[in-house]
């Protein structure tokens, strides 16, 4: 029996109906059908008989009961339609969600006399609704349903939330579409293509509550199979994040292209600068090669002119002496030219000399003023009693001119260029860890200045802000190299739009350092001697000339045309050679290698190099090693005799 009851109830549930009632308002009686009785676990005998109306509420869930009493009171009081959902404690012990639908029947006086209705089991639907609600809030998806012909649409709470609207179940179409930004289509379209079934779209909206601009996507379907017109049912969800990500990605892509372009441009500039410097290097090598050979030739010419001059009678025709002097002047000019070639190719070794910095700057001011355009005011000022420094004067001049030219280029519209020199004592704190006494030469301009980024790179080789072909990008790096090579350091300050100030710090010359220039014979007496000198020179004419000069000075002279021969001669016990006079650049074995080998056998051996071009082979960090001296070709008879004497006497 119980089984039967349950199975028939199940059948009714499947059919969608779980009972009906008939409530007589006038007599206050309730009549129920079989299904109702089964649902309420009432005896079948109760079906169709008058029951107390309170029976209606007997199995309703306690939490829903008050609500239902109110609703029924509304019906009894004259409301037209009853449509409520509530839980019923079913016969099988479970709670079922029921949807009660009912209506009142009016009597002759338009008074409600009966209230009839049906119960439908909607448990499954309620659960589905619950799942849908959770899906909506968890997924941030709002639903809508628009029925063709109405000016409103049914929406979910999440739908309202997405648009920043007050939660409601119905919204005017106008309200929904009014939030769409101008230019965007409508979320609920005014007209739908009669063949359309799916409607997708993305809309930019201005959220109502906070005015924020968001993107929502809409996916909807047009349903036409139930009656006239159509229903447009769909969802919206926020796609702002993915839109933004998309935009960011696009930006990144766009800027990537730009960044790559910039990077390529930088590389192209670097490549061009490298090419330029390689070109300069090649020209430098060519120039220095020429200078080397040229100096050999000049040595022969000037040497022989000198020799002739020395041997001329005092009462010789003065025209002959004048011709010789002219020849000598020409040769000296040629020597100056090769010197400039070498300077251009930056192959000069550093020849540090005690230098009166003030005097040097004053001497230079004329040159600087001339090389700077008239729109720029040049001030050169030096502190009185400026210390001396031991530096390569030529390189210092180059450095200062270099900086002055940079300053000029930074002031295309004119400005002030000031070059100054002063004594500075740095302690370890103030001088970036560099302490000591320095002469500081500053070159300051009021030009365009440099950004911190540029500033960080100015000493990099090949870095240039000038157009290709106008600078090698080696200027400041050479200055930097020269100053540090001289034991000093460089400070640079620059502000965009205000100017640049570069300070070169050179260490003060120690007072106990001999003014070595003073020890150089200041002309006059020629050094003579009887020592044995080995002359090594691959150029036969130069060697012959040199040997002649030395013999003339009274020395015993051996000669060799290359390093191997020289070493053999030095190795002979009967030859007591005191000084090795050797060319630097020779095939097979360089002068340096020869000197090394010779001094390892004969540590007391003095060495004097001669060279038209002392390449890197003779240089360690651009400075000459102690115990080694270099005589620049072309050398004069006087210079040769003096330097030979100095080497032998020290």
């Amino acid at each position, binding site marked *: 029996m119980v089984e039967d009851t349950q199975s028939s109830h199940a059948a009714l549930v499947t059919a969608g109906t779980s009972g009906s009632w008939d409530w007589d308002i006038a007599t206050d009686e309730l009549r129920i059908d079989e299904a109702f009785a089964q649902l309420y676990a009432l005896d079948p005998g109760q079906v169709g008989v008058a029951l107390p109306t*309170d029976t209606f*509420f007997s199995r309703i869930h306690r939490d829903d*009961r*008050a*609500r239902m*009493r*109110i*609703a*029924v*009171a*509304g019906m009894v*009081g*004259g*409301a*037209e*339609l009853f449509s409520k959902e509530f839980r019923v404690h079913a016969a099988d012990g479970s709670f079922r969600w029921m949807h009660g639908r009912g209506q009142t029947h009016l009597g002759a006086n338009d008074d409600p006399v009966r209230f009839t209705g049906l119960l439908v089991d909607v448990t499954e639907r309620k659960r589905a609704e619950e799942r849908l609600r959770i899906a909506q809030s968890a997924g941030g998806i709002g639903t809508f349903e628009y*029925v063709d*012909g*109405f*000016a*409103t649409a049914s929406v979910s709470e999440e739908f309202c939330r997405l648009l920043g*609207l*007050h939660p*409601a*179940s*119905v*919204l*005017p179409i*106008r*309200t929904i579409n*009014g939030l769409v930004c101008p230019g965007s289509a409508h979320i609920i379209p005014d007209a739908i293509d009669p063949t359309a079934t799916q409607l997708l779209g993305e809309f930019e909206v201005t959220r*109502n509550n906070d005015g924020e601009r968001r993107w929502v996507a809409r996916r909807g379907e047009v349903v036409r199979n139930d009656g006239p017109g159509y229903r447009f049912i769909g969802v919206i969800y926020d796609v702002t994040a993915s839109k933004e990500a998309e935009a960011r990605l696009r930006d990144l892509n766009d800027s990537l292209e730009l960044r790559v372009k910039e990077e390529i441009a930088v590389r192209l500039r670097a490549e061009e600068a490298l090419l330029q410097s390689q070109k300069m290097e090649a020209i430098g090598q060519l120039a220095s090669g020429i200078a080397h050979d040229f100096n050999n030739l000049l040595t022969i010419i000037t040497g022989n002119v000198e020799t002739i001059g020395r041997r001329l009678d005092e009462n010789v025709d003065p025209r002959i002496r004048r011709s010789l002097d002219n020849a000598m002047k020409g040769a000296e000019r040629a020597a100056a030219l090769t010197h400039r070639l070498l300077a251009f190719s930056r192959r000069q070794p550093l020849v540090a000399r005690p230098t009166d910095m003030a005097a040097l700057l004053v001497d230079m001011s004329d040159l600087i003023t001339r090389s700077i355009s008239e729109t720029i005011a040049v001030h050169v000022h030096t502190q009185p009693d400026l210390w001396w420094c031991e530096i390569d004067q030529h390189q210092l001049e180059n450095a200062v001119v270099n900086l002055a030219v940079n300053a000029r280029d930074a002031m295309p519209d004119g400005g002030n260029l000031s070059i100054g020199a002063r004594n500075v004592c740095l302690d370890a704190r103030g001088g970036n860890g560099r302490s000591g006494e320095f002469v500081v030469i500053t070159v300051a301009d009021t030009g365009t200045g440099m950004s911190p980024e540029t500033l960080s790179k100015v000493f990099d080789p090949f870095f240039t802000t000038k157009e290709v072909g106008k600078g090698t990008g080696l200027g400041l790096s050479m200055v930097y190299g020269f100053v540090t090579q001289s034991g000093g350091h460089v400070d640079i300050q620059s502000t965009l739009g205000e100017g640049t100030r570069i300070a070169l710090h050179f260490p003060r010359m120690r007072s106990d350092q001999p003014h070595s220039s003073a020890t150089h014979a200041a002309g006059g007496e020629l050094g003579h001697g009887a020592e044995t000198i080995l002359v090594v020179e691959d150029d036969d004419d130069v060697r012959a000339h040199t040997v002649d000069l030395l013999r003339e000075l009274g020395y015993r002279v051996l000669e060799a045309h290359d390093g191997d021969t020289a070493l053999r001669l030095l190795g002979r016990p009967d030859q007591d050679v005191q000084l090795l006079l050797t060319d630097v650049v020779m095939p097979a074995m360089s002068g340096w290698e020869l000197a090394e080998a010779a001094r390892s056998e004969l540590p007391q051996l003095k060495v004097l190099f001669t060279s038209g071009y002392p390449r890197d082979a003779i240089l360690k960090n651009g400075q000459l090693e102690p115990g080694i001296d270099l005589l620049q070709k072309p050398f004069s008879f006087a210079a040769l005799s003096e330097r030979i004497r100095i080497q032998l006497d020290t």
Partner: protein
Amino acid sequence: MTADDIMLGELERDALTEIVNIGVGRAASNLRKMVGGQVLLSVPAIEIVSQPRAARLISEREEADLVAVRQDFSGAFSGRALLIFPETKSLELVRAVTHDELTVEEVLEMEHEALAETGNVILNSCLATMANMLKRSLSMTIPEVVRGNGASLFEVIDGAPEAGLVLFLYIDFSVRHRDIRGYIAMLMSLPSLAVLKELVGEFIERVVGEDG
């Protein structure tokens, strides 16, 4: 009197909603008879809000100017009932209730009268039902047609000059195949709200009794 004093409990809200529903149901069936078409009604939303908020709730939905039929009611509790349309819809309502038998000129001519009469039928049936359910009687003023925006329609109502808070009750309705939609709104001052709350409590007591 503060907002807390008149905050409605869940059951009170249900009961009030039900009472309003009954009234609106009557109103809708009258409207249905008048326009001869299907009328869609939302579940009434009941909130106790400030008047500016009430104005915002309407203007959130309506940018255009509004037309309202306004009736003040007094009795055990007093307040103002409004039947609100976007201005552009009011003519459509007039056409609907006159079954499209009038020319445009005639519609324009009798717009005011037709609106006032329609509003009277709808608001009256609604309020009378509510009064009946609460076992009180209300008297109503002659309907007035007013135009304005949300803010001006919800201006301070008589008898509640300083209160600030109102019961805002609104129902969307729209009519199929007529571009008609609107709201029914009721505004009550705080003292009236307190009375209403009491009456709703009595109603619940009556209906639920000891069962609740």
